């Protein structure tokens, strides 16, 4: 070791990869091999190419933005015709050797080049932003970067400024509404709740497969909620297949590349931010009070078990009036401290950051504490070698409340039940109704997560055309969950406490290497670039758990306190997974006017059967900059830049269980008479499993008007997925429940428009506005004929994934006699009753009104036979729901409402979604705000159903239901007779509980003031600003639950609002200072 032979290395490339694989697999070769490898690079002899000429004169000065007066750091400064040059440092200052009369050229990405003839030894240079040059911005495109201007696929870049404006807790929060085609939904307001993200709809049937692939600084990760948003330089979203196919087998749902900040050369710069916010329940639901509960009892007393309760002084447990939502919630407080230190020399730059985040939720006893740190080091010893180190760590602690037991139960509990007995013990179980406050406080569900990830990368410049990149990355994730339920929460006699602790230990190791060839020919008219590389990845998961009952002490809630272990909870297991990928990419452009990009990847995954392990993922894309053609000259004043893009590619999905292709015998939970049995896994192995394949075509148009004042990006795509990875239900007779199969096909079509403009741009005032619009239409095109209903959803050919399915509610029969239909059961007849002189219906001695005749809806008299409808064979009565019957093939209905009368009722996925964000700047003030909205989807309001179904005698419905349940013949009301359950009126799959889920939200608003730099300097700071902000301040919707933003992470079962942790309205203040 010691000597580095590049040639040998390259020729032994194969061996190298195999060795890596070997190491990862067998762990025979120690990690030192890798570190040694890295050190070799670091130790490569330094070569300083800069020629040293003695300065004749020294020119010093500062470079800044002409509009904002902000210093520009890292501006390239070259003295023309001389080998001298420098880069502007912190505060934009520079010093360069030049003589009077020399021409100094300043160039900076996104700004127009500026040349200045040296006249004095002090130069203050104002640079002008160049919208066209913004295209020079480099974006991550996977295994390398490309200029934004050269993009041929559909890539959106979100930069740090946009992320910062939202004051968000995590990256996904910040991405909501930030780009078209990217749908982020946060299902609850719980501290630390993970959002779900979808790019261009859902192209698979399994819930695990819909998330995009996340790449952080070149490393694949599963979750990004432990990344500090303030550490992020940029986020690139690779939406179409031609962009993402380079990531092959896991890119069918798009790729999100996150790049963290790099250090800037210069003196150490310390940034400190402190943020504090207060939040409250954003929307309180109506809930019955004691009086309303008693009204309910008086009216509904025939319901089994519902009895009138005493409310005098002798009634110990039933003599209060609780507002549960008030008691359960509190003002949430968020405290956040951010520190970052950056600096360095030209050779070595560093960025260090530390964040402490502390949030108490709006529901008591829910909280999140997180410490995040990052060390990013870039080392460029010479022109040949460039190394980068990225290390991130985080520790997260979180306590979650049991939403089902706290919120859902609280909304149903009798308002007059007491919460504590006079002796102070909680009144936990009164008539089967649990105490939500005791649940909230006494149930512990605490998770501690430790996360460490690192990536070491080395780039070697092998001459002018070749760059070789290699990296090793790893991620270690330890998650430990502790649950404990106090005795006070037990209904057993005698009372028992119970609990469990579970640990997950995930490790990931990977190595990626690629060789890039880059060259321009023929006076730079032809540009060629090619990349060839491989990646090897290895995952390991260890799970262990311990649980039982009768803890020796309630103070000690670790496993040693358990006196009676529960054998089914005492278990551990281990899994692994590996992948290898080889990829090749070629790019060619002619005069930047015609661009072609092609990639091919071959991927192998351990998850699939031996015969189908490998898959090919090709893509091709191109772009035509038509504004460079001569015919466009005439309009160039208006249309500054125009590019037409097209792309096609194949991407894959491999997200199934690690061993789903194999038959397994499992054990641990299958005891009989003290013997722990072995059983076949309920999922039958399928050795023929292979990749799910998505073919996506994309056409896009980039337009820039008026020198960048208006920008527009339009994309249209069609995504066809075949061989869907689907957990097929096997016939129950087989003894197995499921098998993973490649099955059916699905299509997504969509349109995305992003329009951004600067309508006002004056010296002191500017307004920047951006509108994102995305629509997506999803349809299951082939399901091999096995259409079926799953709970309240329909899975069927020709329908979108996640369509609501059930009985269509059409009203309530007013009288028993209202159940009168024409002979074909298609027209509901209107009974005409005998009435007295005052117009009141006369009720006879048989307690029934007498019907004089039946009318057709048009008012004409009906003379034919009158038929009554039944539900499941039982004749419908007054107070029963009128369900719509579905006609059979011949257009007939049979008069009996049964499971064949269910129909598709609406869509769980939004038809379109969009955002509108604005930034206004006036002198030192700035204001940004954004709106976000979803349209065209339905939400199943399960809380409302729980309330209306009166599942338990103790459950208390909402005031609306109390007042509107059908109580007497003739009542016109939307709700059924709760006393008679024979017609199953409170069925779950009732369209009555489906509501329009469209909403518009004022997502975030921030008002900031940046202190005058001169003033700040006097107190020793370089910058200071202060922000007031609000999140989730207002929502416009017709939905009656807590919040219309419900989880979209279930593909086939979206849009069910189970009563999750409610949303909050947040106000905050943030102070940022730089030293």
């Amino acid at each position, binding site marked *: 070791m010691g000597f580095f032979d*590049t*040639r040998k290395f390259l020729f032994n*490339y194969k061996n190298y*990869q*195999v060795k890596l*694989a*070997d190491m990862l697999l067998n762990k025979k070769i120690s990690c030192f091999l890798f570190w040694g490898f890295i050190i070799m690079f*670091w*130790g490569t*002899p330094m070569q*300083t190419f800069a020629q040293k000429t003695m300065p004749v004169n020294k020119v010093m000065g500062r470079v800044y933005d002409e509009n904002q007066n902000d210093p520009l750091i890292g501006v390239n400064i070259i003295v023309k015709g001389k080998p001298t040059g420098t880069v502007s440092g912190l505060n934009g200052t520079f010093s360069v050797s030049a003589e009077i009369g020399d021409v100094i050229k300043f160039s900076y990405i996104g700004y127009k080049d500026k040349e200045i003839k040296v006249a004095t030894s002090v130069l203050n240079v104002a640079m002008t932003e160049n919208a066209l040059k913004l295209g020079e911005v480099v974006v991550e495109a996977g295994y390398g970067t490309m200029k934004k201007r050269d993009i041929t696929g559909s890539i959106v870049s979100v930069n740090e400024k946009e992320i910062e404006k939202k004051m968000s807790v995590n990256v996904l929060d910040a991405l909501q509404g930030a780009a078209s085609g990217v749908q982020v939904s946060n299902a609850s307001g719980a501290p630390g709740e993970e959002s779900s993200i979808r790019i261009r709809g859902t192209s698979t049937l399994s819930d695990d497969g819909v998330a995009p692939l996340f790449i952080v600084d070149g490393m694949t990760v599963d979750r990004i909620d432990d990344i500090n948003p303030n550490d992020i330089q940029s986020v690139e979203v690779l939406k179409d297949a031609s962009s993402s196919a380079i990531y092959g087998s896991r890119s069918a749902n798009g790729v999100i590349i996150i790049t963290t900040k790099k250090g800037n050369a210069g003196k150490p710069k310390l940034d400190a931010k402190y943020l504090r916010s207060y939040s409250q329940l954003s929307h309180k639901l109506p809930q019955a009070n004691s009086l309303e509960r008693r009204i309910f009892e008086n009216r509904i007393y025939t319901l*089994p078990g519902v009895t009138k309760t005493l409310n005098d002084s002798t009634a110990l447990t039933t003599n209060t009036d609780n507002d549960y939502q008030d008691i359960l919630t509190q003002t949430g407080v968020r405290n956040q401290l951010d520190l970052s230190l950056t600096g360095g020399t030209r*050779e*070595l730059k560093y960025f260090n950051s530390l964040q402490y985040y502390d949030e108490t939720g709006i529901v008591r006893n829910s909280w999140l504490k997180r410490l995040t740190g990052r060390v990013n080091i870039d080392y460029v010893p010479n022109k040949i070698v460039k190394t980068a180190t990225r290390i991130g760590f985080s520790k997260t602690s979180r306590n979650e409340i049991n939403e089902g037991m706290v919120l859902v139960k609280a909304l149903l509990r009798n308002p007059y039940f007491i919460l504590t007995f006079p002796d102070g013990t909680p009144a936990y179980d009164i008539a089967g109704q649990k105490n939500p406050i005791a649940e909230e406080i006494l149930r512990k569900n605490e998770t501690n997560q430790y996360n460490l990830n690192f990536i070491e990368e080395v780039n070697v410049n092998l001459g002018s*055309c070749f760059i070789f990149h290699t990296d090793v990355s790893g991620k270690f994730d330890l998650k430990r969950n502790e649950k404990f339920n106090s005795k006070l929460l037990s*209904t057993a*006699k005698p009372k*028992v406490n119970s609990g469990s602790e579970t640990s997950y230990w995930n490790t990931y190791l990977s190595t990626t290497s690629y060789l890039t060839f880059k060259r321009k020919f023929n006076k730079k008219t032809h540009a060629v670039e090619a990349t*060839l590389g491989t990646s090897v990845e290895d995952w390991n998961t260890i799970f262990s758990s311990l649980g*039982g009952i009768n803890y020796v002490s309630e103070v000690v809630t670790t496993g040693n306190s358990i006196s009676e272990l529960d*054998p*089914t909870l005492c278990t551990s*297991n*281990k*899994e692994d*997974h*590996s992948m*290898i990928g080889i990829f090749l990419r070629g790019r060619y452009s002619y005069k930047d006017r015609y661009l072609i990009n092609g990639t091919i990847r*071959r991927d*192998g995954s*351990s998850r699939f059967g031996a015969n189908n392990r490998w898959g090919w993922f090709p893509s091709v894309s191109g772009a035509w900059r038509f504004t460079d053609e001569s015919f466009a000259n005439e309009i160039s004043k208006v249309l500054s830049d125009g590019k037409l893009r097209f792309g096609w590619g194949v991407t894959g999905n491999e997200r199934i269980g690690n*061993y789903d292709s*194999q*038959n*397994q015998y*499992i*054990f641990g939970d*299958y*005891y*009989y*008479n*003290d013997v*722990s*049995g*072995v059983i*076949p896994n309920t999922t039958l192995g399928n050795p023929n499993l292979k990749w799910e394949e998505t073919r996506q075509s994309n056409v896009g148009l980039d337009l820039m008007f008026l020198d960048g004042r208006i920008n527009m990006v339009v994309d249209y795509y069609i995504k066809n997925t075949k061989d869907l990875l689907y957990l097929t239900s*096997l*016939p*129950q*007779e087989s*003894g197995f429940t499921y098998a993973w199969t490649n099955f059916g096909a699905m299509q997504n079509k969509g349109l995305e428009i992003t329009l951004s403009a600067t309508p006002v741009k004056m010296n002191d005032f500017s307004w920047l506005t951006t509108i994102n619009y995305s629509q997506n239409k999803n349809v299951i095109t082939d399901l091999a004929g*096995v259409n079926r*209903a799953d709970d309240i959803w329909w899975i069927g050919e020709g329908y979108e994934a996640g369509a609501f399915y059930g009985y269509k509610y059409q009203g309530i029969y007013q009288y028993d006699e209202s159940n009168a239909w024409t002979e074909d059961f298609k027209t509901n007849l209107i009974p005409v009753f005998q009435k007295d002189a005052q117009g009141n219906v006369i009720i006879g001695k048989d307690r029934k009104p007498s019907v004089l005749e039946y009318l057709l809806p048009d008012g004409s008299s009906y003379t034919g036979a009158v038929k009554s409808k039944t539900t499941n*064979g*039982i004749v419908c009565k007054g107070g029963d729901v009128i369900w719509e019957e579905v006609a059979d093939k011949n257009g007939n209905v049979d008069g009996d409402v049964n*499971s064949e009368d269910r129909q598709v009722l609406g869509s769980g996925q939004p038809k379109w979604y969009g955002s509108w964000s604005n930034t206004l700047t006036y002198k030192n003030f700035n204001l940004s705000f954004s709106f976000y909205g979803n349209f065209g989807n339905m939400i199943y309001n399960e809380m409302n159903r729980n309330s209306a179904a009166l599942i*338990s005698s103790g459950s208390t419905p909402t005031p609306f239901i109390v007042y509107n349940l059908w109580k007497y013949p003739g009542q016109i009301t939307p709700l059924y007779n709760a006393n*008679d*359950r024979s017609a199953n009126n*409170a069925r779950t799959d009732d369209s009555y509980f489906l509501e329009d889920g469209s909403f518009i939200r004022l997502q975030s608003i921030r008002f900031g003031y940046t202190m005058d730099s001169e003033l700040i300097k006097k107190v020793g700071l370089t910058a200071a600003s202060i922000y007031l902000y609000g999140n989730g301040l207002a929502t416009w919707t017709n939905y009656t639950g807590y919040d219309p933003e419900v989880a979209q992470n279930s593909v086939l079962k979206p849009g069910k609002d189970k009563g999750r942790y409610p949303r909050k309205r947040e106000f905050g203040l943030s102070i940022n200072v730089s030293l």
Partner: protein
Amino acid sequence: MKQADIHIFTNEDKNRICKFHATFLKQFSDMKNIIKIATIIFCGVAFSGCEDFLSRNPISAASPETFWKSKEDADLWLAGTYDALQTTLRTGVLDWGEARSDNFVSNGVGTMQVKVTTNTLVAGDADLVVLTSWKNIYTTIARCNFGLKYTAKMIENNVDGNSETYKDYMGQYYGLRALMYFYATRVWGRVPIVGNDPIESLSQNIYFERSPIDSCKKVILNDLDSCISNISPTNRKYYFSLGAAYALKTDVHMWFKEYDLAEQSIQKLEALNYYKWVLNSAEWKKIFTEPDGSTETIFSLYFEQLQDNGGSGIAQRLGSSSNTSTFSIAPDLFQILVNRNRNGNIDTRWQLCFDTITYNSTQSTLQDKCGKYYPWDDKLVRTGESRTGGFVYEPVNMCNAKIPIYRYADIELLKAEIYYRRGEYQKALNIVNTARMRVGYYVLAKLADFTNPDSGVLDCIMEERRIEFLGEGKRWFDLIEVSDVSYDYFHKIMDPVMAARSGSVSYTGENEGRILFPIESTAFAANPLLRGDQNLPYSE
């Protein structure tokens, strides 16, 4: 920063590096070499070495290749099979065998029990899946099939020299499979017969249609014959035994009205000399609280709450310490017991099953709980009362109650029915009286009391069975078993019951088809061969 600060190479190294760089760059100017290198990298990585890296086998699970190597493996599979049986019968025993009968009325506030007791079962109702799905039955059958296939191989290879044990296990698999098919046949009528080969690959036939009743019967009896010829004759309670095989065989023959064959089975069972009537009330109680030691137990299903995910479903269905139960005992049945305990008589089954401190009325009382499976504790403190004593109920998810599948009284009272069928009424009544006397009820049934012995004796046997097996999942099947093809006895009992229950559907006309259970909807979605073959009048 100076070079020397970090330079770790010798000067010689440095020279070699520089020299190398020069040659390297020269080489790369040659495009041919690039292509060559590219090809080597691309093909090399793609086709060698990687396959090993990508073959990953389950770490924490066994596979068909690594299992079936020792006697322990055979033991573990047997336990796994009984685990499936537990899942099938934990509430299935009552849901299929009793819930719809006149023994139970709906209790609590759920909708499932209302639908069950009003005869308004629906195929696609999530609340009713537990009754309408045969999934668990077929899961148990599949495990038996695995066990049969591989245990036979182990016998072939004489693994660990334990062939006798394996033979016994095979006997148990045959027996359990027969029991499962018998349940399925009684609940749904015609059911699919899935054959002997376990499903191990999607390339096998996984779709089966419903077979005629005759084929189902044949499979059950064949399995029982195989069981009897393989199973060890040990007297054991928590595992399927030779006695259980004869008991089941009796039950099957009775169901198909083959009384002579049934009697032969009973004789074989009696010849084992393992089973006897219990002697007194205390022993009777132990059939349920300690079945292991009871002479009446033939086969009881073991449950332990910590091992078995909350244990058996007795607490949930009949009474628990933590919740209201789904069903309570029909007032008329309770009244029969009350009446038997009047005028100086006692039938201790009343006190042993019900809290007679609270429910001691002569009126028909709606019982909220049945304590048959729980011991009585005299010292138990009653909330808000000065009196003490009560059943030690267990919470719903912590129920250790062991469920009797077959016991001696069951077989003997079936024998009484055989005597009745032959007109040997007194012999039939003698058995009934034996059952009565052991629980302290000395009011004996005498033939002279029946003006019409032809119906009276049957009623007498049926009433005794109704009381004796209350909460054991027998009544519903009994009502069908004693009926003729027109379901005469069933209608006699159930029609008035249904007429009295509001919102219920009678078993008359096309609704007579409702005596069978509906087949759960998802079964049709997953198996096209079932489509169009739902039990009428249910819809798919």
